[in-house]
């Protein structure tokens, strides 16, 4: 967070930490930024930093200066060029100073040119080890190059080379280009998916309250579905082979949660809209969203309500969307009490469905009830949950679609322990009971373990 030091106007040469009263006094006092100094950088180009700190000069009260300084610090950090930035605010002195003038100093520490990547992530019920290296700030224009490969414990492999460039400003944006190769393995029935592709991503970050970001992506992928098992249903086998998807995707994310994994308050909403068919052979429109809402009932009890859903409309004539585009439902982090992608009949909708919805209600309780916040309370939660969701195939008629959505919906409930590792990995150990399911669903009645970053 940096240190905040200041010198009151009347008190020369004595630097001391502000008391709360002094701070309150200063809060609404008229103020002006005379000077901004950024220290400690050598490689980063001046204009990159200049455009970030321009905001400082628009501040008109001391309070404003502090707020803006924090925003500028965040903006500078988002360039990914600095390891650490601290802020000093001082009254300005010298010939050019004005009576209400202040001087803001950012002490920066630049990242080393090359660094290695070694960490673990979890996604989609699979743990990954990421290995790679990163070249930071190649030419001083806040551009980075990264190569990483990740290996998952159930056979997923990903190789990704990425070049990215941050464009600072009042709305900071980041442009990046990826080349990737991915091999994923879900289970014996669905076979192996190979992907070779490129992804161009343009991200806009607006610091509205906390996080409001938008991504505009173009993705061109060659996909290859390979059935390994002779026991795979023939319907899946018919979809095997190579296809090209070229799509434009728009992602809107609003995230006001105080933690990504075990939040106490806030909301999260992510909407994805994808249109495929700019070249390539699959054409579709796909929309899906996830939302979470948290509310603190008492000091130790948190309520979470979530809902998500999506649908895909096939626009193609010659080649149909295949199972890599359609939706699957079920799993220890989404619809608990069912196996991963375990909802639906092996013969009818094993190759994915065109629409789904899923919802959840959680009540979290801190394990050490009534105690001050400590490590255990921060990393673990006991939870009661209730999940409901359904899959269906959409067709032309809206009325029947609406009925289909709620026909034979799946319901499950249970208790469990949620653990947080780092700031993004969530572990769940649940005891669940599916209450409502149909024949063909692969249910888990009892203990279920889940790990991942996305959850409902």
């Amino acid at each position, binding site marked *: 967070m940096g240190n905040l030091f200041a010198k009151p106007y009347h008190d020369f040469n004595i630097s001391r930490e502000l008391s709360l009263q002094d701070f309150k006094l200063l809060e609404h006092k008229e103020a002006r930024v005379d000077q901004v100094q950024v220290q400690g950088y050598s490689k980063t180009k001046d204009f990159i930093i200049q455009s970030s700190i321009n905001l400082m000069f628009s501040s008109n009260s001391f309070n404003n200066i502090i707020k803006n300084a924090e925003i500028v610090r965040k903006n500078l950090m988002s360039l990914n060029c600095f390891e650490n930035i601290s802020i000093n605010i001082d009254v300005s002195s010298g010939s050019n100073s004005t009576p209400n003038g202040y001087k803001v100093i950012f002490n920066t520490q630049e990242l080393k040119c090359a660094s290695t990547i070694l960490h673990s992530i979890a996604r989609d019920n699979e743990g990954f080890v990421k290995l790679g290296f990163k070249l930071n700030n190649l030419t001083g224009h806040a551009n980075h190059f990264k190569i990483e490969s990740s290996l998952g414990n159930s056979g997923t492999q990903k190789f990704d080379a990425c070049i990215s460039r941050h464009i600072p400003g009042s709305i900071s944006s980041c442009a990046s280009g990826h080349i990737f190769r991915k091999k994923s393995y879900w289970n014996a029935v669905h076979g192996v998916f190979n992907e*070779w592709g490129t992804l161009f991503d343009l991200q806009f970050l607006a610091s509205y309250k906390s996080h409001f970001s938008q991504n505009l992506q173009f993705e061109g992928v*060659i996909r290859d579905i*390979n059935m390994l098992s002779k026991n795979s249903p*023939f319907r899946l086998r*018919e979809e*095997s*082979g*190579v296809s090209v998807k070229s799509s434009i995707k728009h992602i809107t994310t609003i995230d006001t949660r105080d933690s990504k994994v075990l939040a106490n308050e806030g909301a999260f909403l992510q909407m994805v809209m994808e249109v495929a068919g700019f070249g390539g*052979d699959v054409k579709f429109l796909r929309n899906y969203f996830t939302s979470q809402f948290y509310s603190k009932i008492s000091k130790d009890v948190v309520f979470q309500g979530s809902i998500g859903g999506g649908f895909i409309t096939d626009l193609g004539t010659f080649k149909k969307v295949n199972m890599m585009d359609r939706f699957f439902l079920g799993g220890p982090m989404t619809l608990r009490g069912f196996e991963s992608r375990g909802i639906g009949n092996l013969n009818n909708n094993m190759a994915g469905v065109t629409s789904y919805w899923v919802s959840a209600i959680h009540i979290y309780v801190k394990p050490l009830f009534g105690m001050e916040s400590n490590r255990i309370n921060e990393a673990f939660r006991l939870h009661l949950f209730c999940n409901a969701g359904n899959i269906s195939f959409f067709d032309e008629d809206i009325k029947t679609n609406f009925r289909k959505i709620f026909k034979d919906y799946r319901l499950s409930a249970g208790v469990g322990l949620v653990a947080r590792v780092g700031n993004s990995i969530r572990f769940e150990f649940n005891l669940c009971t599916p209450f409502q399911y149909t024949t063909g669903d692969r249910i888990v009645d009892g203990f279920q373990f889940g790990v991942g970053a996305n959850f409902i």
Partner: protein
Amino acid sequence: MSKMTDLQTSGILAKECLRTQICGEGEWPKNTVLYQPYETEQILLPDNSKCLSVKTFLKMADLEFIVEARENAEYMSPHRGKVPFIKAGQFLVADFEPIVNFAQSKGYSLSSNLDEHQKWDLRVYMALVNNVLLNAEIYVTWKHEPTYNDLTKPRYGSVYSFPLNHWATYYKRCEMLSHLDVLDWKKKSLDEVFKEVEKICESLSNFLGDKKYFFNEKPTELDALVFGHLFSIITTPLLNNRFAAIIRAYDNLVQLCVRIETEFYQSRFL
């Protein structure tokens, strides 16, 4: 160690028992479908030969089947890249020999009336055709640069959209070239390849002699296989007719093709 091998063999035997139990003797599954690439736009010489061989075999054995063309037939195949394959009941079987074996396990065989010595001949000639004619076709299709550029590339890529037509063809070519490399065919020149073809045609021609089929009056698997390859080579338009001309030089082989053609297909003429 020996116990280990015993265990393994017993495991294999058990599997085989299970297989025959499931397959069962007798009935040829109804609604058997043969999957192959599109004949007019997509299929290439080696695949065409194999498809024709399988179809001829099934017709000779009087087994019912319907043909379905799929652009991704080679990816759908249980043995990736091998076409044609048949879906018989719950079973997927790819390639000529496995299909012949599958039919045999159901009790349908064209060579059951042959004696031991003839059966050996049959196997030897079948292996020879597979090793020489098939590889020669692969060589011409994938290794011979002008053919690859003018015929193979547009045909193989015809079912794919833009980046994929180059990409898929490139990958398939690499695969095929490494196949030829393993068999020591990659280094051969076109003349050497055709010399090999001439040799096998000569020996097939001598073996056939004046007989109606290779083993006298009744057609066998060898007839189906030879017909599939020779007929495809004769009828497939290539850059020049050298390949076809080699075969046309052996009159009795051409006559065999005509005979099988009229007897089992009737509608088409050479």
